[in-house]
């Protein structure tokens, strides 16, 4: 029996096939799914902020794109995945309101996307597909078995990238 594991905000989970991973209602946060196609081990992180280095209170490593992705890869390796084979997909990073206050919070979604891309590049994990930005929330369902990454949004057809 396959299980659907739910990843919360500022959280991450790893699993073996045929289990699936999901995170609901991504707004400005970014969901990063990583998979090792041979072992079919997968992981999904739901990060809120771009960098642990910009913030003093950074004990929660799951919260940031840089430390979150690093931890995700580490946990997948513990399960038996190989970093060399890993590939990634990602979604989220929307700007929910037309305007957001306080300079550092402007375009936080975009910053999250940029930071996630930078971290993946640093770890030499290719980004196969992504759907980011715009102004709407997304729910994602990741199937490590096939690498399918399904995105749902309100009032839009379901699609897979």
């Amino acid at each position, binding site marked *: 029996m396959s299980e659907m594991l739910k990843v919360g905000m500022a959280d991450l989970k790893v699993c073996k096939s045929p289990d699936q991973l999901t995170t*609901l209602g991504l*707004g400005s946060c970014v969901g990063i799914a990583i998979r090792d196609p041979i072992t079919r081990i997968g992981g999904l992180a739901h990060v809120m902020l771009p960098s642990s280095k910009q913030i003093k209170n950074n004990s929660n490593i799951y919260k940031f794109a840089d430390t979150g992705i690093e931890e995700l890869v580490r946990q997948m390796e513990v399960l038996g995945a190989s970093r060399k084979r890993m590939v990634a997909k990602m979604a989220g990073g929307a700007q929910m309101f037309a305007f957001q206050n*306080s300079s550092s919070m402007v375009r936080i979604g975009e910053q999250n996307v940029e930071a996630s891309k930078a971290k993946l590049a640093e770890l030499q994990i290719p980004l196969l597909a992504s759907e980011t930005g715009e102004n709407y929330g997304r729910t994602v369902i990741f199937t490590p078995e096939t690498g399918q990454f399904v995105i749902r949004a309100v009032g839009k057809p379901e699609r897979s990238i």
Partner: protein
Amino acid sequence: MARIDLNDINQEYFDVLRELGNIGAGNATTALAQMLNCKVDMKVPQVRLLPFSEVGSVMGGEEQLMAGIYLAVEGDIKGSILFLLNKESAKSLISKLMGMPVEGEELSEMEQSALKEIGNIITASYLNSLSTLTQLVIYPSVPFLSVDMAGAILSVPAIEFGTMGDKLLMIQTQFYDGLDGFFILVPELDSYDKILASLGM
């Protein structure tokens, strides 16, 4: 150094914040009643400090459709305020205000505008009472609206709280039967100190 730590808030501060939430929500309810020209009952607001992982479930799940009205706050206190209500409640409020039923799934421009105005008046009266109580100057921005999944809308204040800690401070107010409204006031960390200091804490 800020005195308040949201990961480890003491009971006294929490009580003060709860009382502020109470007074603010009371004023907001009065404003709502005046606008709709009818009696609006309110239950005692609940103030909660929630870990991010539990935020979505409070409102009936991360995928619950909600309307969020967001205002930036400037002045002595900096930050933002978000007023959230579920889509059905939003529709019923709009139809009360406009005197006609809301049809279809999508809100028309006129209906969105009405909803922004409702949010504007409710949050402004909330902030107004906060300002009177603390003698601090607070200027809200114009309102911004988003109708989307609860989780997605909540990511905005959650990220702002995320820069300070791992929890989100939320004031839940039930206006009348089935109409649940949520206030999420996100002051920057030193604004918390200003609020508490102004009250002699």
